[in-house]
């Protein structure tokens, strides 16, 4: 029987994968994807918990997360585009003019 804990474990796994992605990726676009992965892991958790409690709040939260993820991507991509125009690259390692 697939129970809540399975969902949560999956969610945690995906969250970790996303986290590792955020930490390891050098390309900004990939990095954004990784954060999306993390948010989606949260969504899985919310959906599962919501079902578990038989309470709609979790699903509501999940919807908000989706909406916010979408707008985040919109803003993020916007910034990335101008950045790309200016720098010609999306490599993280080149983004180090400010430091110290």
């Amino acid at each position, binding site marked *: 029987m697939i129970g809540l804990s399975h969902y949560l474990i999956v969610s945690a796994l995906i969250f970790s994968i996303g*986290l590792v992605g*955020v*930490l390891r*990726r*050098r390309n900004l676009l990939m*990095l954004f994807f990784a954060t999306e992965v993390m948010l989606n892991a949260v969504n899985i958790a919310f959906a599962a918990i919501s079902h578990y409690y038989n309470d709609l709040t979790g699903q509501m939260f999940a919807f908000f997360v989706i909406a916010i993820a979408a707008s985040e991507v919109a803003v993020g991509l916007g910034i990335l585009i101008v950045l790309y125009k200016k720098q010609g690259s999306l490599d*993280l*390692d080149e*983004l*180090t*003019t*400010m*430091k*110290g």
Partner: protein
Amino acid sequence: MESLVYIALFAPFVSSLFAALFGMSPRKTFVGAIASLLLFVSLSASMMLAYHVYQTGESVHITMMDWIHMGDLYIPFGFNVDQVSVTMMNVVTLVSTVVHIYSIGYMDHDKSFNRFFSYLSAFVFSMMVLVMSDNFAGLFIGWEGVGVCSWLLIGFWYHKPDLTREENPSISPSWAANEAFIMNRIADLGMLIGLFIIYWNVGSLQYDAVFAAIPHLTDVILSTAAIALFIGAMGKSAQFPLHTWLTDAMEGPTPVSALIHAATMVTAGVFLVIRVHPLFSVTPEVSYFIAALGTFVAFFAASMALVNRDLKRIIAFSTLSQLGYMFAAAGLGAYWIALFHLAAHAFFKALLFLGAGNVMHAMHDELDIFKMGGLKKSMKATYIYMGLASLALAGIPPLAGFFSKDAIIETAFNEGTLILWVMLVVTAGMTAFYSFRQVFLTFEGDERYKEFGIHPHEMYKFVLVAMSPLAILAVIAGFFRESFNAFVTHLLPGYEMSEHTHHLALILGAIVFAFAVGGILLAYKKYAKGLKRSEKVENSFIYRLLANQYYIPNLYEEFISKPYAMISEMMWKGVDLKIVDTTVDGIAKFLYRSGDGTRKMQTGNLSNYLNWMAIGGVLLLVVAMISAMIG
């Protein structure tokens, strides 16, 4: 009577201020004249007071105003003119009047003439405060005041450069002045401690209150107080081991040496012991120590005088030696004898110094007696004065020194302290020898000064006249011994020789006399015909030891001054800068460097930042775990 007290006290002060007004202007003879006049006023007032005290047998006590009042401590400016202080006042004002007049002549060519009188009168004022005060704090004011004036006067010719110890044993006037001041300060600390002990056990610093309380105090307190006060006396009176400053103080002008370093200031220590006799008389151990130290210094100083070639230093050593006598007397309980010797010594020693001043004046500041000789032709009067003074010093009857010194030696016998007696007798012989060695080398024999192209001339007439009171007193003072005894023993405990001593008095006197005459004869034999120097003697260990003052100044230099300077330097560069300050700066630098280290985490690379966030999360988890486990 009150006004007389104020006149006696403040006339020198006015004189000092008056002279100070002209301190920076060129030489003005009237400054000296007015200063001398004011001193004479002070002398007259002192004499009147003496007469008054003599007549009524009562002391005059006045309180001028409050000085310090804090907590339970109450110190007024109070003055007490009693038999002891009036004696001192007269001695001080008399000698200072003479010295003031003398200085008009002696300092004739000095451009700082006016300044000199200002200092000199200030000294007299301080000395008057010292002797007249009715409390320990007032005494201490005077005590320090004379110290400063002594500093100013020793260093009067401050412009002279520092020389090596070989060229000039005192290095320079300013060096000698500082040495004197600092050594005195060491002793002053002892004195202050004495004051503190007295205050906290008696609750007052007034003499009468303190003396009244003495019976209620324990022996330990009394002894420590006595020791502490005596340490003070040791500094001012240049007792071993604080004696080196006195000979170096001869760098000052000769009138200064006469007044301060022979007649008055250096006797302040003796005065202190006499003044505080109720305390010292109940602490026999301390008193005995004083007597022993006094005897030792008498001998010790005399031994150094034997070989010295410096006219003034010889006299200085003799002063030291005589101070030893005074302490011996005071320590043995013969306070009035000590006071009597103090007065008598003041007269003939001042005379001797002033005579030496004449010689110096004539010899263009040359002080080496080996370079003099045969001065009697050109300086008859001075010769007579110095001869008289030396006779008095040597203790030849009927001059003053005989009566006073003989009494001291007799006291030593009377107390059964034979070792002291023997030493004092031997010292008497040595005194006679060195005094006349100096007199003969200066005035008799061949005229060695001619090699140096010096044409000696006698001092001004008025100066010689001015010196005459001292000469007269040096001759006749001794006759007043008994009346003096009667006068001061109103206040001081009497001292009578025992029957046994009384019987032997003549024999004892004869022994001393024999030693004195022996000394003079020896000196006559060796030096009257001129200087015969013997390489062998001069190179002998003893001679060199004595000539170098037992190497004590060198010792002080090597083991105190230099190490102090070295440690100071080390404290500054080694400790203050290297340790204390570097620690402070080190903390600051450490913070700064750790800032440099920490900012490396701020690589600017987003990936690192994200890693930091993850690490932070883990870190939080770890801290949480730890604190959860501990808590």
